């Protein structure tokens, strides 16, 4: 192949195994939302900061292309709930199956973080008065709210502007940025897992160079794993909700370094992703970005909305207000199941629409109908929300408009036939699952330090933490805590043997001429999860999964090959994906009870949520063996007191 003139020479110099050594006080792995905020907040404290990103900081990660909802800013002046009440309600709505620490940080500092973002150049209010007088706009601040217009817990923002603003600030502060560099492992004192983290290694995915990062404090911000149950490059693209860069490297390297992870058993049926889906936020629906859009059937018959009691809601505006029958507020929380579910239940499209379609009451296909929406609602959905929601500015707003879509005249088809909503898909292949909101990750304390000294985490890297504002606020919080930590520790010497081992591990695929490529390996490891760790779980089925996984690691992983630095990076990714799959399988085997909130069904332990299992199950690696443990569901103690003791106000 190499002599074939139809192939272009690799455009970058090949620097496989060549070392570059970089030192800083603070090292940030991942240049997404959490990573950028962590780097900015550390640099503002005067620390020297290095930021490493696998892609390009300007747009990489889930939040790179945008954000339309800034959620749970309990400190925003219009919110009727204070941070305490808000975090309490959110935790209760999720039966406490959420991360109290990161949830509280979000509720208590969401708004002050947003104001900082505005100073950097992010657009957070309707400065042009385009929505003057709209029911979702606060006239004095020009801020705009979503979902519950009375309680103002979620803000509408122009998040397409955020990532470029963060990048400018990073540059202004002199943060050293290493792009197209994939962090592959953590370096530890004495080279042993579980000891203090003193740096990391990286692979440049354009040149193949090996970069050694030395630091006093390291933060992981590499988001949630993806591609564990489902991967199809042929169908990827628009239908993949999460970007390819987020492949669980952080989870795998934390595991290898001896950090404790939890909640890895939580996954959910595939949503917004997979082979047969449509562009995210780009088909007719009434959810999320499109709330509270009218939906009609093929004959134009409108589908009603109902309140929490199933009573029809008479007008559009009331879809964004608590029920008139005594409801104080509603929350928009996926996976509601807690005791306050009824109290905070949002208005919704007819919940039994599927049955009614089957009975012939509504004719397929269904459509989203912006034409009959009030003018300001139509313009805010098609223009602000679709436009700033991640992955919508060009893919939906521009491409559809260029092809002639006119929200004043046209009905957008829904492809989720019976549900009419991409957020409530009719069941497809039940074996296809994903880690999503509330998924597993590393355990942290109030400084957002993991269980390993010197290793911190922010954003979706932390268990049960997700959302743009949550990533921003935790990044902002951790940056300061890392600088405090770094002031008290020395720069340790690196262990040569650990570096050599890592080079051997990651460069092995370039020394093979052929074998299994990363895509096939990814699909193969997904099948392990589909067959042995999907909707229906049993002890023996999952043990079979572990056995197959062991076999693949023994027999197939050593056949992985890569013939350029880009493919080498993707190959290292799939090696991490199978590691994460091992964590998931082990976590699932540990939980010997089913759980509604965790979407966790064990055929051999069918009882749902018995109280003795209401706790976090943890796992970590010690001397190559998996050490299992547990934490109380509220291991963080008093939220308010701890937040105050560890937040910027008290300590810097």
């Amino acid at each position: 192949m190499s002599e074939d003139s139809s192939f272009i020479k690799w455009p970058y110099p090949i620097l496989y195994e060549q070392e570059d050594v970089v030192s800083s006080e603070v090292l940030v792995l991942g240049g997404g939302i959490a990573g950028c905020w962590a780097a900015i907040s550390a640099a503002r404290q005067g620390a020297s900061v290095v930021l490493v990103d696998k892609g390009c900081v300007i747009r990489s990660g889930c939040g790179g292309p945008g954000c339309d909802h800034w959620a749970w800013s309990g400190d925003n002046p219009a919110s009727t709930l204070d941070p305490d009440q808000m975090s309490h309600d959110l935790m209760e709505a999720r039966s406490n199956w959420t991360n109290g620490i990161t949830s509280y940080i979000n509720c208590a500092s969401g708004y002050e973080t947003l104001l900082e973002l505005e100073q950097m150049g992010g657009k957070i209010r309707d400065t042009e008065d385009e929505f003057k007088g709209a029911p979702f706009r606060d006239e004095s601040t020009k801020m705009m709210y979503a979902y519950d217009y009375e309680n103002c817990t979620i803000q509408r923002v122009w998040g397409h502007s955020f990532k470029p603003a963060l990048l400018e600030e990073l540059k202004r502060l002199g943060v050293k940025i290493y792009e197209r560099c994939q962090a592959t492992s953590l370096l530890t004192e004495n080279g042993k897992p579980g000891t203090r983290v003193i740096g990391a290694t990286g692979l440049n995915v354009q040149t193949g160079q090996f970069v050694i990062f030395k630091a006093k404090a390291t933060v992981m911000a590499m988001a949630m794993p993806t591609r564990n149950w489902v991967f199809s490059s042929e169908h990827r693209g628009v239908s993949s909700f999460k970007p390819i860069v987020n492949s669980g490297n952080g989870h795998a390297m934390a595991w290898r370094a001896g950090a404790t992870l939890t909640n890895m058993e939580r996954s959910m049926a595939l949503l917004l992703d997979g082979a047969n889906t449509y562009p995210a936020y780009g088909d007719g629906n009434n959810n999320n970005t499109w709330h509270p859009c009218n939906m009609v059937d093929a004959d134009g018959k409108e589908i009603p909305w109902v309140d929490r009691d199933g009573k029809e809601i008479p007008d559009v505006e009331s879809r964004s207000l608590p029920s008139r029958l005594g409801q104080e507020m509603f929350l928009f929380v996926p996976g509601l199941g807690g005791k306050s579910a009824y109290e905070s239940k949002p208005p919704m499209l007819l919940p039994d629409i599927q049955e009614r379609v089957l009975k012939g009451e509504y004719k397929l296909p269904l459509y989203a109908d912006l034409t009959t929406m009030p003018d300001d609602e139509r313009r805010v959905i098609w223009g602000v929300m679709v436009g700033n929601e991640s992955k919508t500015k060009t893919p939906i707003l521009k491409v559809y408009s260029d092809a002639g879509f006119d929200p004043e005249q046209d009905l957008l088809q829904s492809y989720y036939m019976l549900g009419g909503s991409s957020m409530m898909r009719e069941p497809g292949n039940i074996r296809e699952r994903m880690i999503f909101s509330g998924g597993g990750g590393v355990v942290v304390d109030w400084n957002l330090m993991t269980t390993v000294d010197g290793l911190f985490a922010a954003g979706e890297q932390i268990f049960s933490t997700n959302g743009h504002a949550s990533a921003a606020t935790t990044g902002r919080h951790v940056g300061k805590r890392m600088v405090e930590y770094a002031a008290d520790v020395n720069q340790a010497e690196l262990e040569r043997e650990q570096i050599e081992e890592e080079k051997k591990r990651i460069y092995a695929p370039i020394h093979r001429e052929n074998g299994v490529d990363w895509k096939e390996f990814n699909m193969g490891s997904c099948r392990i999860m589909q067959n042995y760790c999907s909707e229906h779980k049993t002890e023996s089925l999952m043990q079979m999964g572990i056995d197959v996984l062991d076999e693949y690691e023994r027999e197939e992983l050593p056949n992985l090959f890569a013939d350029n630095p880009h493919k080498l990076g993707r190959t290292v990714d799939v090696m991490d994906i199978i590691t994460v799959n091992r964590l998931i399988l082990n976590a699932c085997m540990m939980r010997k009870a089913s759980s509604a909130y965790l979407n966790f069904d064990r055929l051999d332990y069918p009882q749902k949520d018995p109280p003795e299992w209401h706790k976090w199950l943890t796992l970590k690696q010690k001397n190559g063996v998996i050490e299992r443990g547990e934490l109380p569901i509220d291991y963080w103690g008093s939220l308010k007191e701890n937040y105050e003791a560890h937040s910027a106000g008290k300590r810097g």
Partner: protein
Amino acid sequence: MRLTAQESGVNDMSKYDKQVYAKPNQVTPARPAIFNEDLCTGCNACMAACQADVFIPNPVEGKPPIILFPDECYYDGCCVEECPVEGAIRLNHPLMQKVRWKRKATGETFRVK
């Protein structure tokens, strides 16, 4: 039996003169972005904003980047947004994901192009 060109209904074989190569199938979807070569200056700004590393620079200076890994595209359109030349690059949703809509007044249907 061998048919002459005329008998087999093909009069002019010269139109098949083009060399035929043994090429593998291409990956699908293969064209996440479409360049307008007349407008593109080859500045590679689109490439720099691509988190998935879909492009590599063209060895011919001034030409649009090469789409090397179309199967990894996230379809976020960030390449298009970063391009300084209006119309030099456009995002092209795969055929199986081109969504349709209906004009309410006429019932006519349209789709993403």
